[in-house]
Structure formats: C-alpha cells, structure tokens
C-alpha cells in the first residue's frame, strides 16, 4: 500500500520536473526570439563597440547552447539573474512584489469561493427554477465582463463618484477591496458554473436519495453528502485559477496600480528586460507545478478511493 503510494509520488515528481524543464526552456527560447535587448538598453545612438561590450557583459556573445546551460545552472542554484532595467537581482524583486500579489489573489479567490460555491449549490438544488436561471445568467455575465472594464467602472463608481474607496495603489485593506472584487468576478463565475454542474450530477446519485431517506437534515444532505462529493473539480479549478492569477493578474494590477508581480511583468516586457521576464515566467511555472501537485494531494486526501 505505502509502497504503491511512494511509487505514485515518484512518478508524479518526475512528471512535475519534466513539466518544469519544458516551461523553463520555453521561457528561454521566447526570450531569445524577442530580439536583441542591447539596442533597447543603449538607445539608437549607441556605437557597435558599446553594443558588443554590453553583449559580452550579458553573456549574449556566447553560443546559444552555452547561454542555455548557464541559464539552467542559474535556476538550479536559485540565481535568477539580474534585471536589465533595475540592476537588481530578479529574485529579490519577485519576492518584494509577491506579498502584494498573494494578498490580492488570496482575497480575490476567497470572495470567488465564498460567493461562487453557494451560488452554484443553490442553482443545482433548484435546477430548472427561477433561482437556477438567475444564478446561471449571473455566472455567464461574470465570465463575459472584461476585467479592465469592470475595474474602471468600479473605480468610477466607488472611488470617483462615491468616494468610499481609494482608486488604486496599496497600503490598507480599503485599497484591497476594489482590486480583489474585480479579480474575483471571473473565478467566481467559473466556480459557480462548475459547482452547479458537478452538484447537479452528484445530486442524482443514489446515495443522495438514501441520505434523504434516512431523514438527515437538508443541510447535511446537500453539503456533506452532496458538495463533499462534488467538490473535487471545484477545488481543482480554484487552486489552478489562483496559480494562474499569481503571475497573470496583469490587468487588475495595472488598472489599480497594484504593486504586484503582474505590474513587474508588464514593466519587464515593455523594456525587453528578458532576464526579468524569464525569471517571472520560471517563477510562475514553478508555482503552477507545485499547486498542481498540491491539488493531486488534496484529491487523495478527500477521496479514499484514490488511495
């Protein structure tokens, strides 16, 4: 039994490492495809000598293979290089920005789950009724509204018109409200739709009927027996959405000038700061792979049939 688990774990780890390697390699390749960064840094007036000097300094005069191996070695030793525009270690900058993004994603996903799950459960338990149709329409709307538009509308209403909340930047919980709400809408809608679909399937299972026949409270039947069994896909989507948002909350962070990773990524891309872009991509890939593993482990913890 435990040996099976160990073997399973090793196989997972192997798959995770291969995924990581592919992501890391992709980040390297895309960085090289985006052109020569030296002209960007030095400007149009630079002489070829200056350019050669900078290329040598950045290691760009080496062959691609050598560059690639250096890059891999850096990642393994947790050296993610130095930013071309900030002259700081990329890792330090990422770690500086990370708490802000974590706050934002954490708050956003918490709102998404707190509203999306009950909404989906409500719709599933009242399938085909007015409740269901309203909830489903709301979810569809939530998935269709563009984040940047919603962000600006919320700023106009709550910051400009009503003056209740700050329009951007960070510093207090009030600063967090609008960006978190903006960010939560899409995952909330996703979670609601998925919860509804998964629940309405589970509610047709014979064990739901028998739980009802045993006279259990509606609450126990719906949540313990129903949602308990419907939660796996919801959990997956919540964790993976969170992972995607950790390095991909660009629009929200931009609209609200939120000093997180998304902002940093945007600045890096605009400046063709390829070491920083690479570092952020690699960081995102690692996060994603780790979260994926976490989801698998959570599934095993929830469902005894997977053990």
């Amino acid at each position, binding site marked *: 039994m435990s040996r099976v688990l160990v073997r399973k774990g090793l196989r997972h780890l192997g798959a995770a490492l291969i995924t990581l390697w592919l992501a890391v390699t992709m980040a390297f390749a895309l960085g090289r495809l985006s052109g020569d960064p030296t002209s960007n840094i030095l400007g149009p007036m630079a002489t070829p000598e200056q350019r050669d000097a900078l290329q040598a300094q950045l290691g760009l005069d080496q062959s691609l293979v050598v560059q690639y191996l250096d890059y891999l070695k850096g990642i393994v030793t947790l050296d993610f290089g130095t930013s071309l525009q900030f002259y700081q270690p990329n890792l330090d900058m990422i770690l500086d920005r990370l708490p802000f993004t974590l706050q934002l994603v954490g708050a956003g996903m918490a709102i998404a789950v707190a509203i999306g799950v009950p909404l989906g459960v409500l719709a599933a338990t009242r399938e085909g009724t007015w409740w269901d149709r309203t909830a489903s329409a709301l979810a569809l709307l939530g998935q269709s509204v563009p984040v940047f538009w919603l962000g600006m509308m919320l700023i106009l209403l709550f910051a400009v018109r009503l003056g209740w909340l700050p329009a951007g930047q960070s510093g207090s919980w009030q600063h967090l409200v609008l960006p978190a709400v903006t960010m939560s809408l899409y995952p909330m809608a996703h979670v609601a739709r998925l919860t509804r679909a998964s629940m309405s399937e589970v509610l047709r299972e014979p*064990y739901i009927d028998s739980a009802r026949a*045993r*006279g259990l409270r509606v609450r126990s039947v719906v949540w313990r027996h129903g949602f*308990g069994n419907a939660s796996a896909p919801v959990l997956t989507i919540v964790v993976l959405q969170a992972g995607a948002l950790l390095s991909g909350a660009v629009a929200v962070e931009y609209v609200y000038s939120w000093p997180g990773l998304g902002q940093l990524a945007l600045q890096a891309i605009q400046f063709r700061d390829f070491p920083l872009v690479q570092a952020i991509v690699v960081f995102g890939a690692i996060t994603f792979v780790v979260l994926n593993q976490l989801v698998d482990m959570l599934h095993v913890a929830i469902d*005894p049939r997977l053990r």
Partner: protein
Amino acid sequence: MARGEALLELRSLTITASVADRQLLLLRDVELEVRAGEVVGVVGESGSGKTTLARSVVGLLERNVQVATGRIELVGEVLVGPGTDLTHTARGRSVGMVFQDASRSLNPLMRVRRHLSEVLERHVDGIGRDEVRARSTEVLRRMRIDDPDRVLDSYPHQLSGGLRQRVAIALAVVTNPALVIADECTTALDVTTQAEVVALFRELVDELHIGLLFVTHDLMLASDLCDRIAVMSQGEVVEVGPTDQVLRHPTVDYTRRLLAAVPHWTEGASATHA
C-alpha cells in the same frame, strides 16, 4: 409492536405526475396495508408503479409528482393526506428504506462508522458516543457480519456488494423503525447473496416485528420471502392476498402472465412460506 397490528395503510392512494400541461396517473386508488411482523411483496413489471408506491411513503417523489387523493397512514396517524405531508418526520425514524443499488447508496467519502453515527445522532435524542459505538457494532452483528469493527472502519469501496447491502440494511434498521421499505434491493446482487439477504430480512421481521414492504420484480424471490403479495399493473393493485393463494391460484390474467414469464415456474413448486 404487537404482531398483526396495521402499521402502514394506503387508502385509495392516487398519485399523479404533471408533465407539460397534462396529469399522468402513476397510482390509481391503491389500497394496501402492512402489518407488524409481516412481509408484503409488491410485484409487477417495470413501470407498474411499484417504486412510486414505495417512495411515496418516505416522501421521495420527484418534484412534479404529487399525491392527488387518498392518504397514507403510519401506525394510525395520517402521514400523507389532504394538506398533510409528515413524511420528513418519519424518514429514517419510523420508516427505514433500502434502495436498489446498494453499492451506490453509501457515500463513497465516508466510512461505515460515520454513516451509522450520522443516522443515530440525528434520530436518537441525546445519544452519547459510547452508545453510538455500541449500537453500531450491535446492528452489524445483527446483520450477520462477523467482524463489525473492520466493516465499521471501512470505506464503501473496500466492501463486497453483499456487505454493502447489509450495511445499507443496517442503516435502515439501526433506529428501530416500525416499517422498512425495500425497493428492488436485491436486484444488483448475485443469487447466493440474494438468498442471504432474503433470509436476513425474514429474521429481522420475525425478531423485531417490523413490517416489511418488499418491492421486487422477481416473483421467485417474493414467493420465498413474502407473507402476502400485491400485484401491480399500470398503477393499480390488481390482486392482493396471501402469497400461496396469489401465486397458485391467480385470479387475474395479468398475474398469470407474470407467472408464465418466470422461467421454470411450475405451479406449487415454490411458495414454501405458508
């Protein structure tokens, strides 16, 4: 509960389903009673209304299905009648139900122990942890399960089909209900396990004096277990009487056709329970 007392009474029970703008008759004027210590079989083809009948007693009808007229009484009290539906108070407390697909009638994420404690804690006021434990073990023993502790600590998927069905029955009887309803609960089992479950039901009925409403399409099985049999066709009870009489001397053509459809059925060959 004294033997012979009417536990469950269905009185001119008519149940309809609303489909589009029409009302479909699912049950028409059904009269049936189950006494304490008695097994009443409900037989008939699929679609004859057996399951509707069984589910109406525990209030588990589909949303578009309703009791149109008539009433259901349980131990002399109106359970379902005009403007009354108390099925939610009876479910799991005075009526236990065992379903068709036992292997899927247990929550796959919960151990057997949790299933039992959940029902006991819901229906036995002020029950303590020790008593939950004791009664869980006891009810599994009663189900002829030799190693109750192992079964209690198992998840449903770790048990055989037969064991799962015993656990399902245990869940239905652990609160000492007056009546148990079994809806095709042996269909998914192999013949040997079926026989064991039938023997177990007989034992429970004889020892605990519960009433058992046994819904099945299997006439052989019904003849082995039931004291009386009600034959259903198109939502009506077309014939009801002692098992021997109904199976040996059927009075309606429909029953004869049902009997003729059973392979190797020779009149008088079965129906050993007099």
